């Protein structure tokens, strides 16, 4: 049976080869499997080199020059490490890094706590849990542009719903405080919006973690008369930890380069209160047009994120191996 099939296939292959123009047959026949594999992946590699690797190398080159994109006729001169020195000694850039760290820390903390709590609840499989899961997921399906704009209206001190709701519960005059215009409140205004939008994403990852824990482990714990509290800390948290850590990694990378939401809500203001690193970088590169210095800043950011992510991934692998 097999022989007959092989014969049929061989005949079909021969027929196909005969139907193929001769030069092409020679070319294909002349290629090894490895070469054919290269032919298939080469376009992707070329594309990656062109749009990822080359710009990166070019940015590294520019970071050692005085190049300004708005002065195409000016001579490009090498400035050594001067751009890096100036970036690292610039108090405004350190301020932006602190703002970014504050934003990343609090958004991740809140999103993990609320996201895990929601996942824990949804995992209970109560009546209508599928419907509520969908409802909870809605914010993360919206465009950041939409979210930024409508929260800007919600925070409007004279007509915004947020101020009125707060006023309803506290009795404070709605227009007496400004979420986006206040130095103390504006960072929190952005944290609230980011948490509202991305907690569902964390919830989904945590839910996957919780669902991956086999039931028999809990059953064994029940037999051993372990309390719910003990089960939570000894089974649920350790076994869901790799997923939680993965969620932290994704959100940290995403929030480290947060740009759109902050621009739409505060534009980095008031003053420079909410100016995160990505906004500073954009201003340096495309408003001040100090391309060389902006490239140095971008490389420093890249190295920082890349390094931290690597350390974190190693820690994640260690947790997974336990």
């Amino acid at each position, binding site marked *: 049976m097999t022989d007959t099939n092989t014969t049929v296939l061989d005949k079909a292959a021969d027929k196909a080869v005969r139907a193929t123009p001769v030069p092409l047959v020679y070319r294909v026949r002349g290629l090894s499997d490895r070469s054919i594999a290269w032919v298939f992946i080469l376009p992707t590699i070329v594309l990656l080199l062109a749009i990822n690797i080359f710009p990166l190398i070019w940015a590294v080159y520019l970071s050692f020059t005085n190049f300004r994109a*708005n002065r195409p006729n000016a001579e490009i001169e090498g400035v050594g490490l001067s751009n890096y020195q100036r970036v690292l000694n610039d108090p405004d850039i350190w301020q932006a890094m602190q703002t970014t760290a504050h934003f990343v820390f609090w958004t991740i903390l809140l999103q993990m706590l609320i996201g895990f709590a929601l996942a824990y609840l949804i995992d209970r499989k109560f009546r209508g849990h599928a419907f509520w899961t969908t409802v909870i997921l809605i914010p993360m399906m919206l465009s950041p542009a939409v979210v930024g704009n409508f929260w800007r209206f919600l925070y409007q001190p004279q007509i915004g719903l947020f101020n009125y709701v707060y006023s309803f519960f506290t009795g404070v005059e709605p227009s007496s405080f400004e979420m986006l215009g206040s130095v103390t409140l504006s960072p929190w205004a952005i944290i609230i919006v980011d948490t509202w939008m991305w907690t569902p994403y964390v919830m989904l990852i945590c839910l996957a973690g919780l669902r991956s824990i086999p039931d028999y482990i809990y059953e064994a714990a029940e037999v051993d008369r372990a309390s719910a509290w003990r089960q939570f800390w000894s089974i649920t948290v350790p076994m869901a930890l790799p997923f939680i850590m993965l969620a932290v990694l994704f959100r940290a990378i995403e929030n480290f380069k947060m740009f759109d939401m902050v621009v739409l809500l505060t534009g980095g203001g008031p003053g420079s*209160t909410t100016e995160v690193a990505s906004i500073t970088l954009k201003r340096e590169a495309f408003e001040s047009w*100090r391309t060389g210095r902006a490239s140095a800043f971008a490389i420093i950011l890249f190295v920082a994120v890349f390094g931290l992510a690597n350390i974190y991934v190693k820690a994640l692998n260690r947790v997974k191996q336990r």
Partner: protein
Amino acid sequence: MRKMTKALLGATTALTLSAGVSQAAELTLCWAAWDPANALVELSKDFTAQSGTDMKFEFVPWPNFADRILNELNAGGKLCDLLIGDSQWLGGSAENGYYVKLNDFFDKEGIKMSDFAQAAVNAYSTWPKGTPNYWALPAMGDANAWFYRKDWFAKPEIQAEFKAATGRDLAPPTTWPELLETAKFFNGKDIDGKKVYGAAIFTERASEGITMGATQALYANGFKYEMTPGKYDMEGAVNSADAVKGLEEYKELYKCCTPPGYTDAYMGETLDAFKSGQAAMAMNWFAFFPGLVKDENVGGDKIGFFNNPKGTTNASTLGGQGISVVANTDNMDGALAYIKWFAQPDVQKKWWSLGGYAVHNAVLNDPSFKDSQPFAADFLVAMNQVQDFWQEPSYAILLQATQKRLHDYVVADQGTAKEALDGLVKDWTEVFEDDGKL
């Protein structure tokens, strides 16, 4: 088959060529998206009728205008044949070869810069500033000025209350202390059953808003960029005691009397505050005044105008732009023909009548000009006292530093006015050192 292929090729070539011809008879003019741009569309219909050239327009909202157009110029794009660009762009655009130098063209066509208001020529056409090197034709004169609710100011009970509170008659303020006093008087007052606020002013952070607003107070109080013009010696000029006082007054006005939520307000927001009946006074560019006069709710008899109040001197922040030919254009002849047409006195008169701010002497010196609009007389005064921001090639860096320092102090309450201006001297010095000018 071959015949068919040839026929198709022929048809394609013919279509391409005809498209090329129609492209040559087309001009794209780039500007900001605002009221005067609509007037220019209307005006340009005459040019199309006379020349047969189709006019296309690329209008970009103000907050993105500089980003969008400067990116286009830096990238060597061909989007714009003609550009009505901000006065501060002149230095960079001239030195980078983005604009065509128009001296020879003006000489050839008999276009005289002496036919235009001198302040406008200096601000909108020349680089280096004030020298006879022309890179643009003055297109749109503009300055920052004020408007107020004339109907509220005219209410007898409010006048009496103001007199009792301040000891003087209620009138449009002529000095910065009067402006503050008037704004404080109106702030929080209940008028026509609605809580109103003193003044809506520029506080925008991202582009140029707070700089254009705060310089009203700075210039009026004697702020200068340099001790000696052209020497970049800023210490003692930028951070003089008078300049510090001016900045403090601007912050005081912001803190005491602006509507809630106006922490990032520019042209649109101040217009909104006024049109919605929230603000007794507001600042904005003359360009918007024709639209305000026509407004059904706050225009007509309800609105009045006044120039920037005096501090130690009379001064107004310059707005406005010149029209330049983009060096990269494929239709140089068409673009120059538009400039020639636009420079004609009759066209300039029509430009003013449609809502554009012509600065041609044929318009400004016309005896009927002062009465042609309720704000026309103020416009004449303002254009003779305007001061502009740096027009240096590095203006963008200088502007960003200013935006940060001013917003940090005025809106975010960081440091003192003296520290903000000292910081500005430090930032600007660094920029000029990088440019090799210091």
